[in-house]
């Protein structure tokens, strides 16, 4: 059948889904609300003459399997060959320079904390031994334990068998650590407090967890084990190649086209109605908006089962990451180490992370937020006027449901705390700030239509992953509504610039 499919959302998952469908001969119309493509991966203007290439920082989670399937290299995609480095900022010492290159990392540890070198190698060996299991889970639809089908049973057995083949020791270790908190687990391995804090940080992105929260080891493994090479040119370049691929396959892309409602008849998709009032008839829709937007906003409540709607409403989606963008009249210097660093991170102790997380439990902004700092203008000087720079900061934690609400004053408080924290390592910073932009989770919700301002379209947690993501009866991309497929970050394998949800959803259709 070559009947028309409507893809809602022009984020990277929507583009991936649209391209996949079109390459399989479907005629596809992609509808994006905003004027540009890329969603969370789209460039963002800070002030006149200053831009960041995307709200997100890392492109190293984009899956090679997706790139291969879409032949993205023919559409301009290039992997970045240089290793990823990140400087752990320290007020006193030289900090720690994390590197995705193991040799470099071992050398760094030799300087920083020699007793951690061997444990580091051991940890890497362990991760290598289980990587294929996680990658396989990641690149294929989630298991369906409730399904009574032979094919499904065989798939589960295969996965189980692969897991079993790890050997008893490794298998038991995986089962042991999965529900653990990342702080405990890292304590089993390492001595350096600063190293542990830096390693633990990624476990907390997109979760409602501190380093002492149970289950944070799973979110850590998920993040760590699915990282590979970054995309040269960052998120903007990736989105560009996805767009080209989609266009080459014949996808009709319409930006500035917000969808108002799905039109249903007897539980079946019949078309979509745009904000403009225009309606497009179709029997198939693939939505990459987050689950709550898709089911609770784009579908009229009357068209949805009560129990199902309730479960969707219960998906936890409490954003706690804020973005702060700075435009600087000069480089961002730091006192930790001489030189310019594209990526830097604060937090010298897991207690710093936990303390920062504590605040959101009481609906407060962290006194000293943990900062993930990116200076994209070091790679791409066109982002700012000559000699000037832009700084993109992911700040944790700032709760979506801040006590008193996200007033202008609250935004100023957040911006001040972020700048104050960074200035501890960069004394000249404040004088160089030309412009400052603060995006709270509430702003992310307003700007990008993200429920709860949550960057992963729903928290990553043991009960919200795999066949439980977003809820069990649409975890396999099909939904209780005939003709509606979901394929955004709300679906397995979840948030992040991976391309997988969109790809698997398109294949499910």
């Amino acid at each position: 059948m070559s009947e028309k499919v409507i893809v809602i959302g022009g984020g990277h998952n929507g583009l991936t889904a649209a391209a996949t469908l079109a390459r399989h001969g479907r005629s596809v119309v992609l509808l994006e609300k905003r004027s540009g493509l890329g969603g969370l991966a789209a460039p963002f203007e800070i002030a006149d003459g200053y831009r960041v290439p995307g709200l997100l920082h890392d492109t190293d989670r984009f899956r090679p399997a997706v790139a291969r399937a879409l032949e993205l290299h023919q559409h301009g995609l290039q992997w970045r060959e240089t290793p990823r480095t990140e400087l752990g900022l320290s007020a006193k010492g030289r900090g720690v320079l994390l590197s995705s290159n193991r040799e470099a990392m071992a050398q760094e540890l030799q300087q920083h904390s020699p007793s951690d070198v061997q444990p580091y190698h051991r940890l890497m060996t362990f991760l290598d031994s289980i990587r294929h299991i996680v990658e396989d889970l990641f690149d294929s639809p989630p298991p369906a334990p409730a399904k009574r089908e032979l094919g499904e049973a065989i798939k589960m057995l295969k996965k189980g068998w692969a897991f079993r083949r790890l050997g008893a020791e490794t298998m038991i270790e995986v089962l042991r650590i999965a529900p653990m908190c990342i702080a405990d687990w890292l304590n089993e391995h390492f001595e350096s407090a600063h190293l542990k804090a830096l390693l633990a940080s990624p476990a907390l992105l997109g979760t409602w967890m501190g380093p002492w929260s149970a289950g944070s080891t799973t979110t850590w493994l998920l993040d760590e084990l699915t990282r590979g090479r970054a995309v040269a040119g960052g998120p903007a370049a990736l989105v560009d190649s996805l767009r080209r691929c989609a266009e080459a396959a014949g996808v009709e892309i319409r930006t500035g086209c917000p969808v108002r409602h799905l039109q249903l008849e007897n539980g079946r998709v019949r078309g979509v109605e745009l904000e403009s009032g225009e309606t497009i008839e179709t029997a198939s829709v693939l939505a990459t908006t987050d689950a709550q937007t898709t089911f609770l906003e784009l579908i009229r409540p009357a068209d949805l089962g009560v129990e199902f709607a309730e479960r969707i409403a219960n998906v936890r989606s409490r954003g706690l990451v804020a973005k702060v963008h700075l435009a600087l009249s000069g480089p961002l210097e730091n006192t930790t180490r001489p030189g310019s660093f594209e990526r830097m991170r604060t937090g010298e102790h897991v207690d710093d992370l936990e303390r920062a997380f504590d605040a959101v439990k009481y609906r407060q902004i962290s006194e000293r937020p943990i900062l993930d700092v990116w200076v994209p203008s070091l790679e791409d000087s066109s982002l700012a006027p000559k000699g000037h720079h832009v700084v993109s900061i992911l700040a944790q934690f700032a709760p979506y449901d801040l006590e008193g609400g996200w007033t202008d004053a609250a935004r100023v408080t957040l911006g001040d705390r972020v700048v104050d924290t960074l200035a501890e390592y960069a004394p000249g910073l404040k004088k160089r700030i030309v412009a400052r932009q603060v995006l709270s989770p509430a702003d992310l919700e307003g700007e990008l239509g993200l429920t709860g301002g949550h960057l992963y379209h729903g928290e990553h947690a043991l009960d919200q992953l795999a066949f439980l993501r977003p809820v069990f009866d649409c975890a396999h991309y099909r939904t209780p509504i005939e003709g509606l497929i979901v394929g955004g970050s709300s679906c397995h394998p979840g948030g992040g610039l991976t391309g997988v949800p969109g790809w698997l959803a398109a294949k499910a259709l």
Partner: protein
Amino acid sequence: MSRHSPFHERTAALCTSYRWKEWAGYHAVCSYDTSVEREYFAFRHAAGLLDASPLIKYDVRGPDAAAYLSRLSVRRIDKLAVGRVVYCCWVDDRGHVIDDGTIARLDEDAYRVTTGEPELWWLEQNRRGYDVSVEETTHRYGVLALQGPSSGAILSAVTGTDLTGLRYFGLTSARLADRDVLVSRTGYTGDLGYEVWVEAEHALPVWDTLMTEGRAYGIVPAGLDALDVTRIEAGYLLLGIDYKSAPRCLIDAQKSSPYEIGLGWMVQLDREPFIGQAALRAEKERGSEWALVGLDVSWTALEALYERHGLPPSLATHAWRTAAPLYDGKRQIGQATSGTWSPTLKRNLALATVRRGYDRVGTRIEIETTVEYRRHTIPATVVDRPFFDPERRRS
């Protein structure tokens, strides 16, 4: 601890029997006298005045109220005119009944919903996406059910308005004892009757005026026992007795669809989506497993049974609600869930749930009964409901 209704001062003083029960968290009178007779006959021959304040009430307001209630209910609410009331039931996704009650349209954007059990959770859960507010207002109003052939005359006299023009299931505002009240032509006795809604702080003068002015018409304060007899004569269901609320059931077998409890007539399938629509449509096509019927239990057989034990026939003086199994020969085909001796019809009546195929009027089955601790069965016949339906109920 149970609460006092706004009429408690008056009802407590009159309740010489001390027979009370709990109703939705309130003290409620079972019968003022030790016997139910006088109150029952007031309902049927003059007018009974029942304190129905514990009736659970929710006020639903907002521009989307009509659409919201239509989505929630098995029948359309958006067509309900201001000043009208409907009887209705609500089902879950799978078409199982949650509760039944009335919806009154008070105003353009304001409705009052009454339910048998507390259902705020349900109303709240389904509010998402609709511009409506839902507020429980049970405690804010005193409600008096004035039921019986003289009820219209009494109310017309005390309000100084001719209420005989108020249609069945109509609603109007009026003045009573110098207070603003709402009068609806609704009730649970299957007779001519009204319900008077008054703000709690004005409750007592309304009661006093009705009692004083009503004396000439034979008004009698009546309790829940008399009501129970009349509601069975009228063939009305009681939640928790004749069917169970789906979310409160422990197993699926305890749940019922509207078709299975005799409320299929109110289901309007072909319209905008509503909760349970697909399940109800499927059941309608498939046919239901169960049906609710009225039974006439053979008096002569009962008499003969007692005779065999050397006893005169004996019946409880009020309605019963301990379920009794029904049989076709040895096969159990359902259960009678409540019943009563009807003093007006002089028949032994029951409401029952039977398997498909046993619901046609005239079908003869057997009902279990015990005499002297011994189990017997006696014949019963499926008959039309309501058992008692006087012209004046609707006219």
